[in-house]
């Protein structure tokens, strides 16, 4: 797959495979991204959302690490071994009205570094009237800051809420997949900073193969909830250039379960509108003609 329109200059499609199963939530990606791209700081105070104080991808946060605290029920094995004990402990819990660790089943803390998906069918790019958004020779989606006029059409077009305007200048800013670094054969800053290789950068075809193998490992280990998110070319955005391995449903991480490019049905809409107009025209004609009758 090569970028259309680049001819000989087209490069293999580049992307991210973010394997959230090995993300340790250190946020080095957030910091490296901001350092490299001169993204302004954006202190919005203590959020109370676990260890997440940047909360979402926006004009000033191009990598965002989500923290999800989950109560997990005891595994089947553990429960089977200690049913009698559990019953006894429940008595204590009821009597004293307090849950201690001994009575509870443990928790899970999910961490995941989110980023612009660099969609195959990018609605933001479709709706941009100025050409500020463009597809690069690496098939990534980039905003040209000197062209963007701040109209904001792309903001509503993005099915993930990634695109966002800066309050002070109105322009739209988002992950460029470090376009400048790619041009110099360097990997994006976030991927380079990631200590555990949770963020992997490379040729998309190769990353997808790698991800499939990784998923097989989880399936073999009986981790049914693990899944790839955005690796399917048949999905509503034609697959992501930056896709993920998640350990739970996308909604758990604040991601849409079945994203669809908002411009995907534009063709149908126009067809339907034309059909409606034709029908209306016919009806009007009929009415007029009927009136004549």
């Amino acid at each position, binding site marked *: 797959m090569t970028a259309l329109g680049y001819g000989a200059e087209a490069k293999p499609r580049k992307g991210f495979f973010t394997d959230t199963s090995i993300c340790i939530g*250190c*946020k080095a990606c957030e910091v490296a991204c901001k350092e490299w791209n001169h993204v302004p*700081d954006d202190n919005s105070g*203590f959020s*109370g959302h676990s260890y997440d104080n940047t909360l979402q991808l926006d004009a000033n946060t191009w990598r965002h690490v989500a923290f999800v605290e989950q109560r997990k029920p005891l595994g089947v094995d553990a429960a089977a071994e200690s049913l009698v004990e559990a019953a006894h402990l429940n008595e204590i819990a009821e009597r004293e009205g307090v849950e*201690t660790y001994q009575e509870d089943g443990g928790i899970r*803390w999910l961490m995941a570094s989110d980023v612009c998906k660099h969609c195959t069918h990018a609605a933001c790019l479709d709706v941009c009237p100025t050409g500020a958004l463009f597809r690069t020779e690496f098939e990534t989606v980039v905003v040209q800051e000197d062209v963007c006029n701040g109209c904001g059409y792309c903001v509503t077009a993005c099915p993930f809420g990634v695109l966002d305007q800066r309050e002070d200048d109105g322009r739209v800013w988002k992950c460029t997949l470090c376009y400048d670094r790619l041009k110099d054969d360097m990997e994006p800053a976030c991927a380079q900073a990631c200590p*555990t*290789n949770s963020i992997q950068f490379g040729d998309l075809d190769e990353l997808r193969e790698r991800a499939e193998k990784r998923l097989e490992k989880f399936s073999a280990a009986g981790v049914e909830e693990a899944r790839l998110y955005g690796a399917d070319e048949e999905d509503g955005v034609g697959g992501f250039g930056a896709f993920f391995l998640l350990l739970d449903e996308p909604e758990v991480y604040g991601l849409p379960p079945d994203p669809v490019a908002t411009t995907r049905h534009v063709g149908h809409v126009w067809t339907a509108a034309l059909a409606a107009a034709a029908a209306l025209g016919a009806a009007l004609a009929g009415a007029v003609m009927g009136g004549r009758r």
Partner: protein
Amino acid sequence: MAECHPVGFQWVMEAKERGAKIIHVDPRFTRTSAMADLHVPIRAGSDIAFLGGIVNHILENGREFRDYVRHYTNGPVIITEEFADTEDLDGFFSGWNSDDGAYEIDSWRYADTEQEAAAGKKEQEGDVSGEQAHGVHGITLNKGEPPETDPDMEHPRCVFQLLKRHYSRYTPELVEQLCGVPREQFLEVAETLCENSGRERTGAFCYAVGWTQHTVGVQYIRTAAIIQLLLGNMGRPGGGILALRGHANIQGSTDIPTLYNILPGYVPMPHPESEGRLDHYLENNAPKTGVWGNLDSYLISMLKAWWGDAATEENDFCFDWLPKIDGDHSIYSVFDRMLDHKVKGFFAVGQNPAVGSANSKLHRLALANLDWLVVRDLPEIETASFWLDSQEIETGELTTEEIGTEVFFLPAAAHTEKDGNFTNTQRLLQWHSKAVEPRGDCRSDLHFFYWLGRKIRDKLGASEEERDRPIQQLTWDYPLVGPHQEPDAEVVLREINGFDSDWNLLPKYQELKTDGSTACGSWIHCGIFKQGANQSARKKPGREQDWVAREWGWSWPANTRILYNRASADPDGKPWSERKKYVWWDEDEGQWTGADHPDIGPADKRPDYVPEDDDATAIDALRGSAPFILHPDGLAWLYAPAGIVDGPLPTHYEPHESPVENPLYGQQQNPVRQRFHRPENPYNPTGAELGAGVFPYVITSYRLTEHHTAGGMSRGLPYLSELQPELFCEISPALAAERALEHGGWATIVTVRTAIEARVMVTDRVRPLRVEGRVVHHIGLPYHWGKRGLVTGDTVNDLFPLVLDPNVHIQEVKAATGDIRPGRRPRGKALLDLVEGYRQEAGVAA
């Protein structure tokens, strides 16, 4: 580890991917727990009970690696009849001197030996320091052999049996009762460790300040050492105990110390007891056997490096010019004296005691009693600005106009602005080169201290005072480079490596001499510049060399990647297993070989070597089967006959402030813990004491990934500050309900020292634990905030008591008690009133 050492944690993740099982034991559920196979919440301050339970599990079930224990540890050594255990004396070992509050350690010795206590003192007091501060220096053994042993380890007074008896009460039930860890979970941990040890497998412990910052911190690590030795996990690949230090180069600043009680390479600091005489010092400090048997060559070579031609055999190589210490001059004792106007001036270099030290308020008050203060740091930290904006100005306890301290703030260069080495946890030195010149007045520490010394020397001029000669004669003749006249760091490293009398760089410490013909700044680093090349600057990628990757950086001693690696082979020199082979004896070649530098002294020392000669000394006095060559007996010490002031075996004591009583002994706390009784440092009532109920919760401090320690390096950085912008406390939903605390709201946390405010984080990650039949709640407190920087907040360390581990003078800030109430704290003098109310309720006079 993921929380505070995310870069190092990548290797844990890699090990996990390869099938290693990761267990995380911590009161709260952290980013490490999230990645672990098993998280074990434990009551803060109860780790010796937990680890002692594992020791007991190993011994009761015969899970020890018996051949390893018998040959490589002091398990078979018989201890003198005079020794009595804490199990016999209700929490005290024999030798307790209640008048001095210290142990006389004679009765802890190996049977049939004589033992000199520290520097001729009859007892090791809480302030033991300097000479013989390291236990190995105090023991004299003929031919390195303990006189009485039982190879079968059946003798009732052999270490193995003493250990068995000492830990017999540390059952899974006790662990459950004391630590709040369900016995099934405890057994899972113990069995996982046992299953992953032995000939075919190894397991490792990683710890950080969560273990050291206790009144029994050293004994925590000793207990882990006992487990690792019983399981045969030392000196072998995949084994060990890894101390994850608090900063990037703390290991380096211990090796070439910024500590008051050791010289480079762990050479003890002289004590006045030696009367300034080298022979007395060596007699007091150099054991006859083991690697320390050559202490004379290490020290004399260091003196030659410092004073060059001025150091001669006739003048004892200027030994008497070294400073002497006669007690505890650690940082906390210095501040204690500072408060009493007994310290005139102070240098704070990369250190922020106004935020980072236990009972920080006491520290700020003390700073106001100085004549002068020099602070070298990246930004103007709270320690430099205490006179202007500290809490005590607000409460009226200090008045700016009345503070006489003259403060000099000198901006420091960052690591990117200077050449030098970082030493990490496994003693690996990695050289970094300056990327840019420091801006403005910023300078490196090397620059600062070099030029300070030069200026002092200029001031001394031609003074003929004897006391000025040590500075006048220093061989500080480094070439100066760059626009700031910076001493060349590589030339300093060459001096650390050492030279012979023809200025040839020495290849290894074994070549150091006692006649003054060699100079070496730090014996353990000898060889770091061998063949004229900076070995620590080697950066050959791991993929281009074998799995041990010895051409990346350099580790002391002699580029040895695993210390005591002789233990990776059996007594005959054969690998314990093919799977875990590392270094071994090659009979055909007549020498040791393998993946690493064999850490045994001469490479041709046969595994069956036995010293024949009664006069054999140093390494020649140790058997070829002895791996732990720094010890005078070549053995690893399950039982420490000397060197530790609070007992030869770790035993559980409650933290100085604890909500529960010690179920093991009448003695509640470590009897030797170091206390500071003064009005600025009151203690919460504890255990069964009246008023203890006023402070019913365990408070514990820690760090977050997003910030660095006391905040000097992170609170000024916008991209880090926005990630954790405010101080918060972490509590369980149950405690929130008990105290009507609202998630996202404010809470005030109180001790008898003071009160602070924090945002409330209610989370399932903090669990109430059932301990001794009651529920114990923890309040988790990240301690990064202070008055300055882009993000500010109250100083968590204000809450904690100044009470220390007696061996290393480290504060107990991982377990204390406190109260929590909804809402923000009062301002100004009203804050003092609130605390006073608590003091009265608890019956504590300040």
